[in-house]
């Protein structure tokens, strides 16, 4: 079954607007949550990541919000730009236990930012 559930599947935002992508998980062994960005014809690239000991992490226009009790985390892209148009994947990884090394991905969100 899908270990990490991501929504929406697609998102259209006006330039300058805020893009919000949400993810949820069930496995409490997950303790590392990265977001990857993928452009057409390229492999995914790490964008930003968070550990559950903090509730928010910001890097430039990109912010992860993390709610440990709800087992949810989200990516916010402030002042969205056409160059942000890409597919975004949330992911989760257990840093201990038998699944060590395996990154579980959401199904992805295709973001389009209109100029």
């Amino acid at each position: 079954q899908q270990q990490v559930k991501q929504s929406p599947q697609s998102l259209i935002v006006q330039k300058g607007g805020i893009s919000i992508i949400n993810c949820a998980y069930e496995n409490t062994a997950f303790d590392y949550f990265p977001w990857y960005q993928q452009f057409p014809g390229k492999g995914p690239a790490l964008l930003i990541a968070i550990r559950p000991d903090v509730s928010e992490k910001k890097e430039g226009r990109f912010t992860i919000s993390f709610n440990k009790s709800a087992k949810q985390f989200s990516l916010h892209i402030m002042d969205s730009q056409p160059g942000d148009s890409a597919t975004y994947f949330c992911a989760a990884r257990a840093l201990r236990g038998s699944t060590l090394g395996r990154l579980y991905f959401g199904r992805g969100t295709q973001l389009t930012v209109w100029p």
Partner: protein
Amino acid sequence: GAGVSQSPSNKVTEKGKDVELRCDPISGHTALYWYRQSLGQGLEFLIYFQGNSAPDKSGLPSDRFSAERTGGSVSTLTIQRTQQEDSAVYLCASSFLGGSGANVLTFGAGSRLTVL
């Protein structure tokens, strides 16, 4: 090398043929992963190597799929008797094990497989 290199970038094959996909990870990265990306299906985990051993191969979809890694470096994913449902982009990633770099997977551009 500077990044993860995958070959071929594109492969078109006939149903029933065998294919080999190659991944050359970043030098010094001891962990190597294979994922499969199908349209609308996200990234599906296939197998994970730590050095030359594969502690997690639970994602391989059938016994037609196999992978090996030699010398702690290059890995080959082999698909025997290909089927049309094997058509996808096969992505390889590598990372350090341990330390702050252990969490960062660097992906290659992928090998697009089309089975006719």
